[in-house]
């Protein structure tokens, strides 16, 4: 039985925490070690590399900021960044809208077979992107694929042609990740306590009103999280265009996305240093945009 009269609770709690502060280090150390080896070290090494150039003739040379200067004036790099920015602006909202509609539909309980849909929509996420592109590669085939069959009745543009390639890639990415995002949103919806609904019902709110005033606000944090991850993912776009290359080699160029450019520079051109500089710039751009997005949607709680 506790007897002593407690001092102000906040201060007391702080004292307690600080007393056991050293254990914080103990628990945190494993992560710190792994983080240092797997993330910090490569990052620092990349920055280090970016200040040199290792040439076929002449060997390793210190070049200061030359690689960065080149990166900022590289038209291929800028085109790639522009491309993923465009991709981001269109694909992310579309995919998340799709995910939201599906989540709301399933949550409302007004569609039949909702568990079938839930699993079905999620399955593409379990498919490796290499396989996803293989399948869509067939479907997009203009000569013998599904597109060619449909083309006999309804004129379709060439999905692997210059004008539609980005959209076709967007379609594959949406196909892969919509279900995953849907589940994140659905889980948030499921966490809404039912008494809120009962109160709304009593107030006479219809289905749409409920969705608008209750569900959407509740889903907001999850939606924002999904958006930030999709933004980061879009800037990193690599797997899908890389595998689609073989189907449309001249459309998906070696610098189609910034990541592909960095990869090809390093592995076909042995230009590791410039590749590292590009990676650092790309990382910075991604971080800035993701952070800006987060700030702009911050609400006072």
């Amino acid at each position: 039985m506790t007897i002593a009269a407690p001092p102000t609770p906040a201060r007391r709690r702080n004292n307690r925490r600080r007393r056991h502060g050293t254990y914080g280090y103990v628990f945190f150390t494993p992560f710190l070690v792994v983080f240092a080896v797997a993330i910090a070290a490569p990052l620092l090494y990349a920055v280090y590399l970016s200040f040199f150039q290792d040439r076929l003739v002449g060997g390793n040379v210190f070049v200061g900021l030359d690689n960065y200067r080149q990166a900022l004036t590289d038209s291929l790099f800028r085109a790639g960044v522009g491309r993923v920015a465009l991709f981001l602006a269109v694909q992310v909202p579309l995919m998340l809208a799709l995910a939201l509609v599906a989540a709301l539909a399933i949550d409302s309980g007004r569609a039949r077979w909702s568990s079938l849909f839930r699993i079905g929509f999620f399955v593409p996420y379990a498919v490796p992107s290499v396989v996803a592109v293989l399948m869509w590669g067939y479907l997009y085939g203009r000569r013998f694929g599904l597109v060619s069959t449909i083309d006999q009745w309804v004129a379709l543009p060439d999905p692997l042609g210059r004008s539609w390639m980005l959209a076709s890639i967007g379609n594959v990415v949406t196909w892969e990740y919509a279900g995953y995002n849907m589940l994140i949103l659905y889980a948030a919806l499921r966490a809404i306590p039912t008494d809120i609904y009962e109160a709304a019902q009593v107030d006479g709110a219809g289905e749409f009103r409920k969705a608008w005033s209750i569900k959407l606000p509740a889903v907001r944090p999850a939606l924002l999280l999904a958006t930030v991850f999709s933004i980061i993912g879009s800037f990193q776009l690599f797997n899908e265009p890389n595998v689609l290359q073989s189907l449309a080699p001249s459309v998906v160029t070696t610098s189609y996305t910034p990541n592909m450019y960095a990869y090809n520079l390093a592995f076909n051109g042995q230009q590791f240093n410039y590749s590292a500089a590009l990676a650092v710039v790309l990382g910075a751009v991604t971080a800035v945009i993701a952070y800006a997005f987060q700030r702009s949607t911050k609400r006072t709680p």
Partner: protein
Amino acid sequence: MRRRRSNALTAVMVLMLIYTMLPLAWLLISSTKNSSDLFSSFGLWFGHGFHLFDNVHAVVTYDGGIYLRWFVNTLLYAVVGAGGAAIIAALGGYALAKYDFRGRRLLSALVLGAITIPGTALAVPTYLLFSRVGIVNTPWAVLIPALASPFGLYLMRVYAADAIPDELLEAARIDGAGEIRTFFTVSLRLLAPGFVTVLLFALVATWNNYFLPLIVLSDPDWFPLTVGLAHWNSLASGAAGSGATTVSFYPMVITGSLLAIVPLVVAFLLLQRFWQSGLAAGSVKQ
């Protein structure tokens, strides 16, 4: 709650389901075809024969059963990598949430910033670094990067802050339990749903991991399934030149892809219950 069934909504959902399943239908049907059928019949309907079992046999026995080796590798990377990542993230998140130590805020911000770094940006330097140390082409090159999950740390920190009341920890301390003992007897149980969520996300991420293993591994013996299938795929598209392909890789790539998807889908079906509750708790608290 009243649930009036809406046929319109169901119809829309069915359309979405068709969109989702269409490519997989092609994969399934194509797995029953041999090479001549693949290139002479309509993609979304069957060919002249049923060769699924022949294809499966070819996939599983080619090159001394390397496909099975890839499967085991993938399991290894996923279980050890994802399992390790979840444990490390849980420990770290617990530390950030429940302890006040110097540099906590700085470290927390650093880690959060790390989430925005494109993984692919790190791949090339990671390769070069590992190359210097001499661990390229070994499982360590794949496992070590898999163990660091800043996103997992973030999730666990949020979850731990919410799910473990300080009072409970205080009570344990008053009873004389050490910090580590407290973690195992009190906190772990409360962290379980969040832990499972992080574990499952990490599992899928490592199962589908492609880019980094592609770069750091050169011996097919260590490939995970994703890299192995891409490898067969590029052999199938034998670029002009030597090493004439007298083996048709196309049916193997397709059937191999089908076999690679099945376990993950089954695992998710079986573990549904767990990740739904974990997701609910984890994603709502921002």
